[in-house]
């Protein structure tokens, strides 16, 4: 151990001496390696940044990697039981979605069926379809709707109202889906429930409110009365259709459980990975109340990381392969310099052997020189990469907000160091072996 440490230190000290003694040679070696290492750093930084951005988007809609999700049907008293079970559990959030209309009473919403803003702005939403019997349909993201057929008592002409999906939640869903706050505030789960439900819009819904003067009156079928919601703010939830978020308890002030069960889509539970006990308790309670589906309930982990990795892995390897090729050209450069200098340094190597340096240490010294050169190159390339990324973040961030928060990914730094070391190893190995084979007796003959 002590011997190995001594040899390592000797190799590093002597290697450093060699580098300092041949500054020009070192500089040329660094230049020949620089582009290759930089390419590796940039590819790694770009793909890692892209991966983080994609992961961020995926997490917005699907939830953070490892989050457990479970669907509970609303049969029987299942809804009440589930809500009661997750009550006071900070590591579990139950959500349910329903359709809601905000705006003038008794008018058809501008975006019937909860169509996105762009579809409405284009005119008639989706494509028109004609049925063989002559009836016409408009198709939006939530399905197709007959035109000219009196399906409800609402008048045909749209009024100042918009339709959206309302998500009611028992706790802060952002611990699982990191929504980005765009303006105003997020729901406050700590305070007492307010009688006027407080809602937060998503970006898509906010577009409607920005364009149309919609009175703040909210209708949900089955509600005891129309409510006057208080809009707290806007979040980016990564969803392309209008949505609003509300506290479950504030909504329940207006909506009896019976209606929640009928109008909602069932209950989605999002749980911290360790919160499996909740699932057990819930199953037991549901089974006890005679619900047969209880045993089939299952929590699925969210695999956002894996999904994103799959999408990007191939592209990353293709680009890394190209960067590796550039790196190889650089390796050929330092190999060339290295082999040339072995010839030049025959006497030095023979002398070192004469004073007791072993063959392996001598090879180590030569390798240490190229490895240190590789590390210096990695340092230069990483520094350049950081500056470049900083620049990109500062200037392109104004155009694409996703790019604004790009910090230098540590993976790119590691990749740069590894690339530098591999290049140093490849470029130094053959010269090192040659140096170790120099016969002392022949050189040191007066």
């Amino acid at each position, binding site marked *: 151990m*002590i*011997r190995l*440490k*001594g*040899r390592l*230190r*000797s*190799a590093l*000290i*002597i290697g450093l*001496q*060699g580098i*300092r*003694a*041949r500054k020009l040679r070192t500089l040329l070696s660094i230049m020949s390696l620089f582009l290759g290492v930089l390419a590796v750093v940039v590819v790694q930084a770009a793909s890692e940044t892209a991966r983080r951005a994609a992961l961020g988007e995926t997490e917005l809609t699907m939830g953070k990697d490892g989050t457990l999700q479970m669907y509970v049907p609303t049969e029987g008293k299942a809804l009440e039981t589930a809500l009661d079970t997750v009550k006071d559990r900070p590591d579990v959030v139950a959500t349910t979605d329903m359709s809601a209309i905000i705006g003038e009473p008794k008018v058809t919403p501008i975006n019937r069926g909860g169509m996105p803003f762009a579809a409405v702005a284009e005119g008639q939403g989706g494509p028109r379809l004609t049925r063989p019997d002559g009836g016409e349909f408009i198709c939006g993201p939530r399905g197709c709707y007959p035109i000219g057929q009196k399906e409800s008592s609402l008048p045909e002409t749209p009024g100042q109202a918009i339709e959206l999906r309302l998500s009611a939640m028992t706790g802060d869903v952002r611990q699982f889906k990191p929504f980005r706050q765009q303006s105003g505030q997020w729901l406050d789960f700590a305070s007492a429930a307010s009688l006027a439900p407080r809602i937060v819009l998503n970006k898509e819904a906010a577009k409607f409110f920005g364009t149309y003067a919609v009175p703040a009156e909210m209708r949900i079928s089955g509600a005891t009365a129309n409510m006057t919601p208080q809009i707290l703010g806007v979040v980016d939830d990564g969803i392309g259709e209008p949505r609003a978020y509300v506290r479950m308890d504030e909504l329940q002030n207006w909506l009896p459980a019976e209606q929640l069960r009928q109008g909602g889509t069932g209950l989605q539970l999002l749980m911290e990975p360790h919160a499996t006990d909740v699932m057990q308790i819930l199953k037991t309670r549901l089974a006890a109340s005679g619900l047969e589906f209880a045993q089939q309930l299952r929590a699925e982990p969210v695999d956002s990381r894996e999904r994103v990795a799959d999408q990007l892995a191939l592209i990353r390897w293709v680009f890394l392969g190209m960067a590796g090729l550039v790196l190889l050209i650089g390796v050929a450069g330092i190999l060339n310099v290295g082999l040339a200098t072995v010839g030049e340094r025959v*006497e*030095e190597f023979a*002398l*070192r*052997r*004469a*004073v*007791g*340096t*072993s*063959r392996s*240490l001598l090879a180590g010294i030569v390798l240490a020189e190229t490895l240190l050169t590789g590390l210096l190159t990695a340092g230069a390339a990483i520094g350049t990469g950081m500056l470049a990324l900083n620049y990109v973040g500062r200037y392109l961030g104004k155009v694409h907000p996703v790019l604004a928060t790009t910090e230098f990914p540590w993976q790119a730094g590691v990749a740069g160091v590894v690339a530098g070391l591999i290049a140093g190893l490849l470029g130094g190995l053959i010269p090192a072996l040659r140096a170790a084979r120099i*016969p*002392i*007796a022949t050189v*040191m*003959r*007066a």
Partner: protein
Amino acid sequence: MIPLVRLSGITKSLQGNQILTGVDLTVHSGEAIAVLGRSGSGKSTLLSLIGLFDRPDGGSYLLGERNITRLPERRAAALRSAEFGFVFQRFFLLKHLTAAQNVAMALVNGQGWLPRRKRRAKVMAALDRVGIAHLAKHRPPRLSGGEQQRVAIARALVREPRMLLADEPTGALDTETGNLVIDVLHEATKEGCGLVLVTHDWEHANRMDRVLRLSEGQLGEAR
């Protein structure tokens, strides 16, 4: 007393040429031996065998009581570092290192590790011993031939070897500087170091304890 080095019947051929045909040599500690011989007679070849740069074809080589005739290279490197000091006609100093770093080279070779402070002390002591401590920070190109050779001798002495091997160390120096270098080498033997000096200079040879001549591949008394 056990001799430091005992060679008997050493043979060596290089690329089919029989250079040494049966060399017998005994060196005691503190003993200085001069080896004379025509150019091409094999003096450097002999030194390279004693100094473990190379191995003999036949015969036996004892270092103290240890038979090192067929020593594997790894052990040989350790022995070169611990037991031998070398001085050559060409000084073989590294141009990019200072005098002190050139001397330290014999310490920083993977054979045992000395803390920086101890290393410095040893280097300065060795430079002092050859009288050029004040030139420690100079690089070889700024030193005279005699000074460079003394740096080389300090490098040979810094490990406190038991055996000094000098191959025409004065060959590149004028008479006066040459005498000085021989003085320094001879001084080392007073502290118990063995010395084998290859030289063409009779005067230098005569200052040694014994003078031998290498001819026809064998060593014989020259006086």
